[in-house]
């Protein structure tokens, strides 16, 4: 069980949260016609073995979107921020 320190609610088990994938992926501008940019946004993932920035939403708590920095090999959580405060 991961324990995520929600900046709003404090330490909570990860099953209160919904996972929403890689937070380092940049969504192209709405009117961006570049196919490669959209392809990369939808499909390509760095998939690091090590530090990974990822979205979790605290659906059974404050419902805030968080960016969690976690090591995918050890599950150590290095930082948690509100997604809105974090420049992507």
């Amino acid at each position, binding site marked *: *069980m*991961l324990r995520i320190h929600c900046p709003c609610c404090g330490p909570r088990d*990860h099953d209160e949260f919904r996972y929403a994938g*890689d937070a380092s992926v940049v969504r192209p501008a709405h009117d961006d016609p570049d196919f490669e940019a959209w*392809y990369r946004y939808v499909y*390509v993932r760095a*998939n690091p073995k090590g530090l990974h920035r990822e979205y979790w939403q605290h659906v059974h708590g404050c419902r805030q979107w968080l960016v969690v920095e976690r090591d*995918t090999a*050890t*599950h150590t959580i290095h930082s948690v921020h509100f997604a809105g405060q974090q420049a992507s």
Partner: protein
Amino acid sequence: MGSFSAFSLLRHAIGGNRHWQRHWRAASPKPSYDVIVVGGGGHGLATAFYLAENHGIRNVAVIEKGYIGGGNVGRNTTVIRSNYLLDGNTQFYEFSMKLWEGLSAALNFNVMFSQRGQIVTAHSADQMDAFSHRANIMRLNGIDAEILGRDEVRRLVPYLDFSDTARFPIHGAILQGRAGTARHDAVAWGYARAASGHGVDIIENCEVIDFLRKGDRIVGVETTRGRIGAERVGLAVAGHTSVLSRKAGLELPIESHVLQAFVTEPVKPLVDHVVAYGADHFYVSQSDKGGLVFGGNLDGYNSYAQRGNAGVLQEVCEAAVALMPNISRLRLLRHWGGIMDMTPDASPIISLTPVPGLYLNGGWCYGGFKATPASGWCFAHMLATGEVHPLTRGYGLDRFRTGHTLDEAGAGPFAWLQ
């Protein structure tokens, strides 16, 4: 090494089984090979075997960072079936099923392939319709499929919950009689032994650190046991495909996720099919030792840790008891995790790559074990001829660009939801 026969088993039995030899040579790396297959799992070993067997290419090395049978080939739940919906998958997995049916003879090694049949329960009229659709597609492709009513299911598997209080009452099921299980370690050992017998070097405890290049072209690998040259390098390292591909400058639509498997204490024979729960994600078979081997969903977040979390353990056990209340007091003996390459459509990638000299076999999601023979067969074809095997035309990397994804579940491009 000798070959297995009733006579050789008898001879060794009389000798007290003291004179068996190693089943594959402990090879040291040569300076170069025609083909290097990175990854000594089921797929890598099968690829090497079929390179030698079908294409006469015997100057081949399989490079494995751990030991043979220590990765996903020994971590799966051993289920083999060919009940896929989408063109591309249906034919590929049926080809694999046909190879399974002759595999013990082809390898001269008993992989204990047991066609005990797979039953997937249906829990609504709509689900029965969906299963009829699936059965029709299977039959049109020459694959066996039967739709069973509730009474027929009850006759076959009376230990499921047919009570009035079942949370999701069983309406019927789809049965593939030729589906079943195989002894996964024997598959690894059998392919390793047969490949080694054809002259393939199986090099264990040798990790690939980087690729050797001449211009754009990949001409070998840098390993913990030195540099090894090769005309062609094939990656068969599902779980860690992203890690190695990045060293080759290849970006992929893959995320690594952990999938858990569980086994209970041994009990008398109870489950004589593979049974899958249509109302949740749970499937079970019984091993020859008596343990119930079962599995369920991914843990649901990127992971390279070969261990799972307790939340999924609880979810899977809840589903198990909802379908089979009689196992509620069984104790779990072990549970473990394997790392899956999850693709955005949950279908595999067997593909040429933009990097000359590098060929890719990965993205196996949940489906890797059952695909082992066909994957090796088709990847060997690609490594030998430089061409895509007709059965794997749908598995190219470019399908994500062209929109021709093979998304059986219709889950969309979210690896952790597949």
